[in-house]
């Protein structure tokens, strides 16, 4: 009989304690932009850097950061990704393991899976590259109220891709929680490494 009573007690206590923990967390003041309830859940179907179809289910139970960019981008994309690297360095290894950065290329014409793989490997194991056809990418970017467009090709066929520099952060349940500015463009400051790391820690806890 005793074990059953213990189970009952636990059945009451566990949710109670979790509620207390959650309400404790709600006192936390977010340092980056809180988008909870304002943006839709993480949902996608993309081609990964390993040329496999991936969906949000492959990213379940981790904190995911979503960033739209392209590899032929010498300035904003590597600035953003290097800042996220600094954030990762700021976290403990067991925290780092719970975070992934999904780098979605909006330039599928040039960013083939092998090229994406080579690019993400240069930044670290937390970074996963993916892309899709333009129509799929348009649906996904507009889902997060962003856009992308292509500049004119120069004589050598090079072109710029206009894209949004924000990083969207999703919790373990796939809920959109934060919009992080990890790059500083035109003198507008980015969120600090410490602020981003602190918010990620709060999502992990």
């Amino acid at each position, binding site marked *: 009989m005793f074990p059953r009573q213990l189970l009952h007690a636990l059945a009451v206590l566990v949710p109670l304690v979790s509620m207390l923990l959650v309400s404790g967390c709600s006192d936390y003041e977010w340092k980056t932009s809180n988008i909870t309830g304002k943006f839709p859940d993480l949902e996608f179907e993309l081609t990964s850097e390993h040329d496999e179809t991936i969906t949000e289910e492959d990213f379940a139970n981790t904190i995911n950061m979503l960033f739209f960019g392209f590899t032929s981008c*010498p300035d904003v994309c590597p600035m953003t990704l290097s800042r996220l690297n600094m954030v990762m360095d700021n976290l403990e290894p067991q925290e780092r393991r719970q975070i992934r950065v999904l780098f979605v290329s909006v330039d599928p014409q040039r960013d083939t899976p092998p090229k994406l793989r080579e690019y993400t490997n240069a930044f670290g194991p937390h970074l996963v590259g993916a892309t899709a056809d333009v129509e799929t990418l348009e649906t996904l970017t507009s889902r997060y109220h962003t856009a992308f467009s292509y*500049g004119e090709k120069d004589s050598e066929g090079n072109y*710029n891709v206009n*894209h949004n520099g924000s990083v969207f952060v999703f919790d373990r349940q796939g809920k959109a929680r934060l919009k992080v500015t990890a790059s500083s463009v035109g003198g507008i400051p980015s969120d600090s490494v410490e602020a981003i790391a602190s918010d990620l820690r709060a999502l992990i806890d």
Partner: protein
Amino acid sequence: MKMRNLLFAVIIAALGSPAAATGNAEFRDPWIRWLPGSAPMGGYFSLDNPGQDPLAVSGASSPAYGSVSLHRTSHRQDGTTSMQPVDLPLTVPGNSTIAFEPGGYHLMLRAPQHSISPGDRVTITLHLASGNRIRATFDVYSPAGK
């Protein structure tokens, strides 16, 4: 009278540093963010113009890259960021500094002429409208940057 003129000359000489007197523009902190594959790399530096006269930068070149161009990243009205070639010449006013830094002005470095890796050093030359050239050695950093 002569003494006063001499004094003025001494004061003026003391106020003007040797660099200001010659107007030599100088690079500070030149570096490149290396990227893998055929991705263009970004080059960054500060350029001091200690002279009185404005400095007009008309272009750049490097033996290490087939193409070196001046670009600037900016925000567009739709919330996206965009890179545009800089209208040349780019004028640096007298007694001022222009910063080429992530998220703003940068050198777009394409078509490496040989294998370039983090840890390497690369020479880049800025061409001035006056016909003068300013050369600097850039440190190549990993994608994580400085």
